[in-house]
């Protein structure tokens, strides 16, 4: 017995010694210049060559230029939302968190009230002069960035040019159009004829192959002057899927589906099967984005003569302009905020403000001069390392090592990035064609719902979007007859769509007052 006690005492003493040793080390570290911790999502393009952003030449250059050490922390891919929620429940927050803070339960102002992030309103002018200057010069951006009560809570990702807000739309096989001698389709009738020809003459199994998510880009539904989601019409918030016009759109889709012009599997289509449909000639038309759509398909096509062309968002009558199309706000939903755990707020502000300075914008958009870009005729041109990577890296993966313009972050995106990223003539043309809509007039800005309403709103929108998704597929696939549209609208109302519109409307009215 005595022996055991002795051993216990010794063990305890040893533990205590090591424990005090640990705490000593820690206090030493704090007094040192500790690096800022920076929590940010790590995308698949970046993970091709690196295990964390800190390894990149970009991060090293950032530290070199600002004199601030940064230690990056990343959630596992695809788990950002879960990890974020666990993160904010803990008391040890990283110094900077880059996340969609509008998704914080209760909104960004609640995040400030909860003591998660720091209110930057009275700090920006003094410690973030570059961002402050940009916001003062661009009132419309300023309005999107601050909350209803005029608070600044984070460093936003700003698209430096309107043309950067549209990046996806409809795509058609150019070689098929030429072969069948069809003009670029403009109206819905053109589309029906074209798809029929694709089916009959080209033996396409799924003439139009589109993923369900691509319908939120409002192709086809836009022709009926409504959209698949919330939109603004003359200052009023409307919900597209309950408008009478929407029924006409569903009728059209249903007729295309039953005629087998629309992919019979579109409800469960994933990007892998979409790729195979397009590359194997099963589909002649689809919806896609600049890079991962047009760019990738053109690059991986093996069929000779394979060519794609972007076509405008269709309308009902010749010569009209579609009211809707794919578009994003100039400021998107990713903001770098400084947390209440941050010991050195001034350094954090300085670090984040760098992306809005002239040199910082070059680093974030183009990387390091001489390595990832060269200035030719005053135009920052990507080097071959980026465009024709010697190791065979995809352009975005090569970019991920030197810059963040291909994704998002606390900086102003430069239009010259897109001019080179979408370098193919088909891609450049696509950007012009797709952005030729009136979509910006109907786009909802970033809305901040009142704290007390967020819980109700998330319950309502969950229930409604689930139901809408389900009925969307059922109507088109003919499982539910379109005559039941009125009952569907009644069900939406029962699920509280009117209340949801009301919440959005009041948030929108507050936005106008900002």
């Amino acid at each position, binding site marked *: 017995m005595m022996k055991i006690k002795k051993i216990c005492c010794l063990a305890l003493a040893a533990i205590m010694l090591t424990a005090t040793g640990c705490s000593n080390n820690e206090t030493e570290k704090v007094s040192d210049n500790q690096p800022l911790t920076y929590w940010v999502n790590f995308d698949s393009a970046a993970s091709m060559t690196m295990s964390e952003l800190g390894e990149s030449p970009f991060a090293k250059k950032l530290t070199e230029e600002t004199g601030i050490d940064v230690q990056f922390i990343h959630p596992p891919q695809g788990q950002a*939302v879960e990890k974020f*929620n666990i993160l904010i429940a803990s008391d040890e927050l990283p110094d900077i968190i880059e996340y969609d803070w509008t*998704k914080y*339960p209760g909104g960004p102002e609640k*995040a400030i009230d909860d003591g998660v992030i720091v209110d930057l309103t009275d700090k920006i002018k003094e410690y973030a002069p570059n961002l402050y200057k940009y916001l003062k010069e661009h009132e419309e951006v300023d309005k999107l960035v601050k909350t209803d009560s005029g608070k600044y809570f984070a460093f936003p990702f700003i698209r430096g040019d309107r043309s950067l807000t549209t990046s996806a739309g409809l795509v058609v096989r150019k070689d098929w159009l030429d072969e069948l001698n069809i003009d670029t389709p403009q109206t819905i009738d053109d589309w029906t004829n074209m798809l029929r020809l694709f089916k009959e003459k080209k033996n396409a199994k799924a003439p139009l192959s589109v993923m369900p998510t691509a319908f939120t880009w409002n192709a086809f539904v836009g022709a009926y002057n409504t959209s698949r989601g919330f939109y603004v019409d003359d200052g009023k918030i409307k919900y597209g899927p309950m408008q009478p016009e929407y029924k006409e759109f569903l009728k059209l889709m249903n007729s295309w589906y039953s005629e087998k012009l629309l992919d019979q599997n579109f*409800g469960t289509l994933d990007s892998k099967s979409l790729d195979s449909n397009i590359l194997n000639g099963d589909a002649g038309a689809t919806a896609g984005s600049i890079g991962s759509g047009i760019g990738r398909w053109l690059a991986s096509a093996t069929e000779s003569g394979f060519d794609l062309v972007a076509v405008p968002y269709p309308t009902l009558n010749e010569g009209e302009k579609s009211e809707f199309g794919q578009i994003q706000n100039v400021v998107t939903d990713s903001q770098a905020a400084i947390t209440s755990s941050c010991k050195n707020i001034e350094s954090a502000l300085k670090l984040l403000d760098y992306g809005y300075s002239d040199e910082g914008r070059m680093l974030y958009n183009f990387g390091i001069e001489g390595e990832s870009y060269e200035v030719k005729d005053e135009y920052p041109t990507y080097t071959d390392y980026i465009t024709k990577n010697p190791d065979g890296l995809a352009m975005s993966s090569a970019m991920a090592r030197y810059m963040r313009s291909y994704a998002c972050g606390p900086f102003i995106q430069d239009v010259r990035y897109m001019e080179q990223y979408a370098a193919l003539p088909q891609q450049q043309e696509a950007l012009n064609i797709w952005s030729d809509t009136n979509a910006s007039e109907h786009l909802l800005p970033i809305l901040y719902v009142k704290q007390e309403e967020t819980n109700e709103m998330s319950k309502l929108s969950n229930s409604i979007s*689930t139901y809408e998704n389900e009925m*969307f597929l*059922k109507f088109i696939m003919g499982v539910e007859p379109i005559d039941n549209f009125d009952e569907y609208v009644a069900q939406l109302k029962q699920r509280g769509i009117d209340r949801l519109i009301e919440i959005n409307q009041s948030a929108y009215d507050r936005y106008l007052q900002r």
Partner: protein
Amino acid sequence: MKTKQNIYKAKRGVLEEYKRDLKSNASLYIMVIPVLLFYIIFCYKPMYGVLMAFQQYSPRTGIWGSPWIGLQNFKDFLTSPDFGRIFRNTLTISLTSLIVNFPAPIILALLLNEIRQKCFKSVSQTIMYIPHFISMVVICGMIRDFVSDKGIVSQLIAVFTGEQVNMLNNANLYLPIYILSDTWQGIGWGSVIYMAALSGVDREMYEAASIDGCGKWKQTIHITIPAIVPTIVIMFILRIGNLLSIGYEKTILLYNPLIYEKADIISSYVYRQGFEGQNWSYSTAVGVFNSVINLMLVTLANYISRKLNDTSLW
């Protein structure tokens, strides 16, 4: 020994009795500690999270700081337009599964029991165990491929119907796909416990029965089945307790909005609300509701079983 203990019991107080018991069976008590710890740490401690169901929970303020809202979440769920459908689906899927997948391993065990060729028996058993060890994600990927419009099962069915379609787009086919794939995956593993029970049956009884003129069928009815009835009953009660708790994994891997009508169940609803919609409190309330119903069912099954044939869990 026993009489001695009784004398002690009479002489000293209850506390003393416990002390003595603790001392004499110390090693047993030490052995049970890890099990207790497991239940306390992993089953009882997390239960305080149930409090979330009565709150408007926010991760930052935590359970002690979030506002209380009473039974609002439960009311919302019971009056939600989806309630009827997901409750019905959960019941349909679990009852069908009970009817099909509960007897299946028993029948398989009885069949395997009759095989005399040792080598063949163990090989076929091993083959039937394998699907159990494949991850659910992989299994569901296989199922989706098999029943897609170009899949092997769809092709087989197309021989009769002439039309090759993606079977997961048809709400009415979801139930058979779900249940039969469960049978395929679970039948081998499920039969293990019955095989064990069967190996305990006295061989002499069969010999006696065959002398009395019983054929194989009669032997099964009168010897084998009665021998494993206690096992079957216990398994049945346990199964009833899980009646409503069908895992969400398989459902969310197989379903799509088109077939929510037949496929959406309580646990997939909880998953969507909690992880996709981040309505943690609401999601918890739905989960609590589910557990309460399960508890009621298992109590009921246990009661009935005790009344009918004296076999019960407690």
